[in-house]
């Protein structure tokens, strides 16, 4: 969702080329000066959307139907971007945009395509264009009330439905590199070799032995570990800033973090966490797919209570929180985590079970 698919990048370049051309075309066109600003804005945005669709035809030739739809869409948008003085321009434009939006959502739901930055940007351009098309112009009498109603209802509904569909798809069908929303996995081989399995076992044994003293949280506190988030949540990462700053790399005796379940008897140690210092710098991976690191990206972090949520597909966070990414990390779970000893997440049911024990 936050990446650009290689076969979609060309659409972005096409839009950037189309922008100045559309502005020049608007300036050269006699009579365009007298046109309302909203109509001229719609014309430019439609030309950009058309260019994106036409740009994608070439990279989708192996999917005949998709390529044909891109071509038809592109031609329709480009033509409509220049036909703004036509009597039926508004209804034709609104229809084409609405059909395109619903068509794209159908593609997403049916898993024919995965939303990426180019797709989301195009949908936002189309939604904005639809708004400009629907805005009644001063002095225009026909359909005025209907257009205001459509603007007030259709744009919010379409925007929320589009964003929700894109987001649900990204959450429900993460690609191979995304363990879940916001976590990007290190690229590895598919199946662990015997050597990798043995190396993963060694890492587990050494780490479990090294962090055993921290089963008593007071020892962890004395060593410099501090809770890094709310202790009302099922589990909390305790971070050692000295170890983070020192740059230890996957050292079982100096894990940057410890993970405690917040039980009614107090913090109970459930694992350790190694963390690299820089975003995008994945650590050594002795166990191949068993010990793949992960990086959390596009998290909305708030200092109030040290809480998190996820950035929306429209790249916004709740106010009071900021979008951050954190350097790659690797967990070692010393409890029987159903997802595995090095899984990205701890199983919530297991944490609840520990709490109740």
């Amino acid at each position: 969702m936050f990446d650009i698919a290689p076969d979609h990048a060309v659409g972005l370049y096409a839009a950037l080329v189309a922008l100045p051309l559309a502005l020049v075309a608007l300036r050269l066109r006699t009579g365009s000066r007298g046109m309302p600003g909203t109509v001229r804005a719609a014309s430019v945005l439609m030309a950009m959307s058309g260019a994106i669709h036409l740009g994608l035809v070439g990279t989708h030739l192996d999917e005949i139907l998709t390529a044909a739809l891109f071509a038809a869409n592109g031609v329709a948008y480009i033509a409509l971007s220049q036909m703004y003085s036509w009597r039926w321009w508004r209804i034709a434009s609104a229809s084409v945009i609405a059909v395109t939006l619903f068509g794209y959502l159908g593609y997403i739901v049916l898993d024919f395509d995965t939303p990426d930055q180019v797709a989301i940007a195009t949908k936002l351009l189309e939604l904005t264009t639809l708004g400009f098309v629907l805005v009644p112009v001063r002095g225009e009498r026909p359909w005025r009330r209907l257009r205001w109603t459509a603007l007030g209802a259709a744009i919010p509904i379409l925007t929320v439905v589009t964003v929700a569909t894109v987001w649900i798809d990204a959450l429900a069908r993460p690609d191979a590199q995304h363990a879940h929303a916001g976590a990007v996995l290190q690229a590895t081989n598919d199946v662990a070799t015997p050597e990798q399995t043995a190396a993963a076992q060694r890492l587990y044994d050494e780490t479990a032995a090294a962090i055993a003293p921290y089963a008593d949280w007071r020892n962890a506190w004395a060593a410099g570990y501090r809770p890094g988030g709310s202790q009302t949540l099922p589990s909390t990462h305790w971070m050692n800033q000295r170890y983070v700053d020192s740059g230890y790399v996957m050292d079982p005796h100096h894990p940057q973090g410890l993970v405690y379940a917040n039980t009614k008897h107090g913090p109970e140690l459930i694992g350790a966490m190694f963390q690299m210092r820089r975003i995008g710098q994945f650590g050594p991976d002795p166990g191949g797919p068993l010990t793949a690191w992960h990086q959390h990206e596009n998290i909305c972090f708030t200092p109030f209570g040290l809480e998190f949520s996820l950035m929306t597909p429209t790249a916004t966070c709740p106010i009071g929180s900021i979008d951050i990414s954190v350097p790659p990390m690797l967990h070692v779970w010393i409890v029987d985590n159903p997802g595995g000893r090095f899984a990205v997440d701890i199983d919530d049911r297991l944490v609840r079970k520990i709490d109740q024990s």
Partner: protein
Amino acid sequence: MLLLMQSLFWLIAGISAAPFVLGGEVFMGALALATMLLALATLLLGVGVLWRRHRARGWAIALEVVCLAGTAILLLLPIGFNSGVVSVMVNVALPVAVIVLLRKDSTEAFS
């Protein structure tokens, strides 16, 4: 229109925090509420601009300047702030467009 889109983006951001509130993140509840109120305020500013209220224009420009300044700071900080196409469109291009349009004559921008 652009203010309507911006208010929708904030509304979605506010709603998006709700599941985390249910998961026990109590402060996110306050942020979600504040974000939805900001979305409402932005929508009302849009209506005010449409009705040619000079004060609404001033507030809208101020809001966009604050958004741009915040985005600039976040882009400069090494915290991995998203600088993708959509982020640039929503957090940079949209506020710039609103400021440019509102600085122009209102009949030009909203006729």
